């Protein structure tokens, strides 16, 4: 996989998807509405499944085709729909106010992290002119941006989306670095993500309900 030239059609398409995925991570970092977080994550996953399909064509790999389909079904459709139904709509989440820095600050930090990803990954690690050299810095930047949005945002749903973006970044790196990842392992990673999202949804709903009860109790006490 690592020998795929950056100038081949597949290479150009993979690099393009990488750039789109990074832009969507930035878009998520820059938005303040829960609906948008979920929408940008879903769009990112769709682009990711396109990237996996591109790799599948380039390498005539049936396993990569299955992975592309799984990505589209699970990350592109199932998780965003579930997040919208179970979290955003049921808990009536609209604007995310719990941020520890302003949007502009976090965007500047995101830009710095992207530059950092290029500085660390580019020079010595990957041979020049391969698609991995073009995409791996992008995927590293996506991982860092996802982590940043987990750090900057205090709301549990926003943190959950941040983790999923990190996961997408790792997956993008995986399909360009080692296309030969065993299928059992990939399937296991998918299973982990689904189980993780489920258990996190349970905690988020439980926490939100507890907090709502707590604030209601405060109101009763203050009534005087």
């Amino acid at each position, binding site marked *: 996989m690592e020998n795929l030239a950056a100038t081949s059609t597949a290479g150009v398409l993979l690099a393009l998807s990488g750039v789109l995925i990074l832009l969507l991570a930035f878009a998520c970092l820059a938005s303040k509405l829960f609906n948008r977080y979920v929408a940008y994550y879903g769009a990112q996953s769709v682009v990711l499944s396109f990237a996996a399909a591109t790799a599948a064509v380039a390498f005539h790999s049936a396993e990569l085709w299955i992975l592309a389909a799984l990505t589209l079904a699970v990350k592109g459709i199932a998780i965003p729909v579930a997040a919208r139904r179970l979290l955003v709509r049921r808990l009536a989440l609209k604007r995310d106010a719990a941020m520890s820095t302003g949007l502009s600050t976090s965007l500047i930090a995101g830009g710095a992290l992207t530059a950092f990803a290029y500085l660390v990954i580019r020079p010595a690690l990957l041979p020049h002119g391969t698609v991995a050299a073009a995409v791996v810095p992008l995927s590293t930047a996506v991982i860092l941006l996802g982590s940043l949005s987990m750090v900057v945002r205090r709301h549990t749903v926003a943190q959950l989306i941040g*983790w999923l973006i990190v996961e997408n970044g790792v997956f993008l790196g995986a399909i360009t670095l080692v296309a030969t990842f065993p299928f*059992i392992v990939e399937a296991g*990673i998918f299973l982990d993500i689904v189980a993780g999202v489920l258990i996190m949804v349970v*905690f*988020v709903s439980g*926490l939100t309900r*507890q*907090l709502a009860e707590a604030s209601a109790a405060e109101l009763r006490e203050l009534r005087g």
Partner: protein
Amino acid sequence: MTALAILAALSPLAGPAAAIADARARLAGIAQAAGAAIALGCSLALLVMLDGRAPLFAWDGFLYVDSLGGFFLMTVAGVTLLAAVGSIGYIAAQEDSGELGRFQVRLYFTFFGLFASLMLAALETGNLGLLFVLVEASTLASAALVGLEGRARSLEAAWKYVIISSLGVTIALAGTLFLFYSGSALHLGSNLGLTWPYLLAHATALAPQALRLAFLLAVVGYGTKVGLAPMHTWLPDAHAEAPSPASAMLSAALLNTGMYAIIRFLAIAQARLGHTYPRAVLLSFGFASIVIGALFMVRRGNFKRLFAYSSVEHMGIIAVALGFGGVLGLYGALLQTLNHALAKAVLFLSSGDVSLRYQTREAAQVSGLLAAVPVTGGALLLASFAVLGSPPFGLFLSELTIVRAGFASASPVFPLLLLALLGLAFVAFARSTAGMVTGRPPGRLASPYRDRAAVAVTAAPLVLGLAALLVLGLWVPAGLDTILRHSVAVIGL
């Protein structure tokens, strides 16, 4: 042998099976303990059969057990047995008092067995990708245990745990990817190429720069599960909020599983990069953890948090020992792993009894334990001494070995610093526990247990664990010595 290994990983599922069949706490606990006993028996049998012979290797390396894996299997299975026996009394008492509902009891045993089984499976795979999958899955299973009590605080602790650990383990996955990438020259086309023994055997063909990054990411990622500072922030909350037998599992089994993953990466990194780089990484994280652990123990408060910070400190000691390296360092690190697991299991299980009887988790509100509940009080006192590394318990021996390894390998500054920090930790820890054990109990305490059998079954793991610690402090039995030497040989020098 293959059948034995599979049985070892699957037998803890006896507990979940009983729970799903709607058994009450006591019955489910007994099933869980029986499953854990079978797992322990299987791992011991595996160790006897391995004894220096070729490791078990099946299914393209998806199943792989060598002496090192066998040693960790034994440790984790042993801890699972102690915690499962401890669960019988603890969960039944909570069920009787109505603090845990019927559904919560079933949830507890379902995830307890799943958690144990996933950890044992993680120790039995040679495929580093599958190792990640199983470690992440064990995180999710244990998160349910942390949030079991369902109060705002425990849910928050569970959230913090699951989100920080998942992020950490995802970083470890990135490290695994870079490790595979560093082997591009090997054309790792098959499943076989992604296994630990294959990569170790072909370590000289790995690209050093990518391997360096891979090792660092793996230490940070799996170090999050181990609780190495500064990635330890989930650990005190999770340990404090989980039911006490589950805290014992977290501290004495989960942290070791994370450390096992780091050791696998360390072996490959050492074979290619030499000692300087891995040593620098492990010593920095190790000393940071010891300092953080010792400093936070100074504050008095929740005694389960105190034990949790002591775990951070001990994981730091193990990382430092791995950093010192050499036969002594690695031998000491493994012995310390076993000793710490036993001592911490006893401490957390006795803390469960204390919190049931005193209805508090604050150290300041507990006094006169030795007079009120002699067995638990005695166990808490002795296990505290053990965990602080005083003779005649096992940790004295292993910490002595580690300090000797330090003098033999690195500059004498490091072992001297280690000794000073151990002294600080001793004072900080003993200050809290001494107050709990001595003095006069606050009035008559009602027994939370149904009958004498429940009291006996609660005391059993404490006595068992302490007896094992005492034996390990007096001498290292010949069989264990052989296992440790073989494990050190597996890691390589």
